[in-house]
């Protein structure tokens, strides 16, 4: 019998872990299905991208204009036939036909008008992109953030420096034309928030809960079963704790993969991104509010998604390490999980008490607890406390080293500890 395989079977035999995993998958599916009512709207953009590409340049705009005008003519053919009226745009049509569309137009016609309305939105938004970006002042945004968080002194200087650096990136973004690419209209559909905030944040919390539970469960398994005297006096002895940690990591990787795979498979089955994988994440159309999403690097949606998944896996590893250290100190799993929840809360609240005129205020942001709170703004210009180019990488690296050291010390201590 393989020892590690047996440790893995212990995880699989836990009804709580399996039950929670199934519950989380069902919950994620419901969350995705709940938002699927506008999935057909998204297909319109895919058709536009299939015809004209996603890159917004003069040629593309001219071709789209031509197409749009053709479609408006087609609209007028329909409206003339039905109501003897002509319209210069779909929005004008809707103003005029707000109440009586149902009786006058066939289903097919209504669908055509609806889709043309979506195309019209994109067409007119394209025309505003340059003007909108010419009004963006990154330095002013930095000052706004400083005011918002009440920062002063060295803390405010640090934020200014970061925004000064980001300002260069902003100009590079403009030069690259990253903003001038078609993507699902964020102000209408909020797809970035749906995927990277609602779904990813839920996924991350689910993975964290399961990772902590699995790690606590496996590390303390022998103490729970009262088998510690038999197990730790065998030849493998206390080295088994290393096997347990390895299997906890593997199990957590598996659980994370199952949750991510099921959620994203369903998401991308329902929402068609087929023509948009390579659109830069900093596209103007991705913006959901007045200030657009802008990444520190030029990266496509596909790359951003991949990197975000990597951060989820890295966070999972960090929380496994935290749970391992907790499990070594606390033998009761329920108390262990409770303590983890308290630690989590403390790491989010205590940094707020640090004076806002020193750079210490930023330390609180560089924790895995803070990192997982806003997955929708990873690798992007962000709020004042975490607008650092290498924020995600630094947080993960620092905590990896810290937890590795603590884990090694914890294992060494266990080997010299009375059982």
């Amino acid at each position: 019998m393989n020892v590690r395989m047996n440790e893995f079977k212990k995880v699989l035999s836990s009804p709580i872990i399996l039950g929670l995993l199934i519950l989380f998958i069902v919950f994620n599916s419901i969350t995705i299905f709940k938002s699927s009512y506008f999935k057909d709207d998204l297909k319109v953009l895919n058709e536009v991208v299939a015809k004209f590409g996603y890159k917004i340049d003069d040629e593309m705009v001219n071709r789209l204009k031509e197409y749009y005008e053709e479609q408006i003519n087609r609209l007028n053919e329909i409206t003339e036939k039905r109501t003897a009226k002509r319209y210069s745009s779909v929005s004008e049509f809707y103003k005029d036909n707000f109440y009586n569309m149902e009786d006058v137009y066939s289903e097919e016609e209504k669908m055509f008008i609806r889709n043309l309305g979506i195309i019209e939105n994109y067409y007119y938004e394209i025309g505003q992109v340059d003007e909108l970006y010419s009004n963006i002042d990154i330095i002013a945004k930095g000052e706004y953030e400083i005011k918002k968080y009440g920062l002063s002194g060295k803390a405010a200087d640090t934020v200014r420096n970061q925004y000064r650096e980001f300002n260069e990136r902003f100009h590079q973004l403009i030069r690259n034309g990253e903003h001038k690419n078609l993507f699902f209209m964020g102000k209408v559909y909020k797809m970035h928030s749906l995927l990277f905030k609602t779904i990813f944040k839920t996924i991350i919390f689910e993975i964290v809960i399961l990772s902590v539970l699995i790690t606590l469960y496996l590390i303390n398994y022998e103490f729970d079963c009262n088998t510690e005297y038999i197990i730790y006096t065998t030849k493998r002895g206390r080295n088994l704790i290393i096997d347990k940690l390895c299997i906890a990591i593997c199990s957590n990787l598996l659980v994370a993969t199952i949750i991510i795979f099921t959620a994203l498979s369903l998401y991308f089955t329902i929402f068609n991104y087929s023509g948009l994988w390579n659109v830069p994440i900093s596209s103007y159309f991705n913006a959901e509010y007045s200030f657009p999403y802008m990444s520190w690097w030029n990266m496509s949606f596909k790359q951003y998604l991949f990197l975000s998944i990597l951060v989820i896996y890295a966070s999972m590893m960090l929380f496994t390490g935290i749970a391992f250290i907790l499990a070594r100190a606390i033998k009761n799993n329920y108390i262990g999980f409770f303590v983890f929840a308290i630690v989590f809360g403390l790491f989010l609240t205590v940094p707020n008490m640090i004076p806002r005129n020193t750079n210490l205020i930023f330390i609180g942001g560089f924790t895995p607890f803070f990192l997982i709170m806003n997955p929708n703004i990873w690798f992007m210009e962000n709020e004042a406390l975490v607008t650092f180019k290498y924020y995600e990488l630094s947080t993960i690296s620092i905590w990896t080293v810290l937890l590795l050291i603590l884990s090694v010390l914890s294992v060494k201590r266990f080997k010299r500890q009375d059982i």
Partner: protein
Amino acid sequence: MLIVNNVSKSYGKFSVLENINIEFSKGIYGLLAPNGAGKTTLIKMLTTLLFPSEGEILYNGTDIFSMGDDYRDILGYLPQEFGYYRNYSPRKFLHYLSALKGIDRDKAKNRIDELLKLVGLENVADKKMGKFSGGMIQRVGIAQAMLNNPKILILDEPTVGLDPKERVRFRNLLTELSRERIVILSTHIVSDVESIANEIIMIKNKKVLYKDSPKNICKILSGKVYEIEVDFDQVSNFRKEYFILSERQEDNSMKLRFISEEKKDDSWTAVNPTIEDVFMHVYKDEVIKEG
């Protein structure tokens, strides 16, 4: 040879064992003391579960803690109280433990069949242990301790939960095993070790009080143990005057076994002391407290 050298164990200011010195070579050693005397603490140090506060434990001259898995490789241990995986069968549990003990899979298979037969569990070898009786679990425990054919076999209260027949069988098994290994058997049940132990170790007041053969230990009370038959109404007075080792009702009187420094009455019959008598004598304070 296993040597316990000036070993003390304390938890903060609370001392459990002080300056313990014992040498173990092949044979059965009965570690005899009432509950709470420090037997389990000593055993946990011998099995590397606890670390001595002072002193060292050497196996063939090497510290057992620095030997690490080499030491645990030759160790078999049955704890006083131990858990098991309720959803596992004895066979599966033993297979898992043999993997932890580094036993080759094929060898383990034969050894497990052999041991399951030896402890009389071959008929339930594949049944889940969740519904096993205490005695059956204890037999699984005995089997796991012997899986790796250990050179040092340490058994803490091994006969708890075993019925009289199983106890006899277990004692015979130990006698056979002790020919080629060190067997340390901790118990507070004197009959477990009286007949089979080569040496008895008694711990009192945190120290080793006696370590000798049962025959020599019995000599401590030589000429001091008597038996007498008395009427029921005299028993109370007798108890006040002498330390009673045992009482047995016989027809219309009571047969008392007691200790006296000298023979004061011809009706007293001098008898050979047993280990149980010595145990009662040595731990009389604890016996009175427990009583």
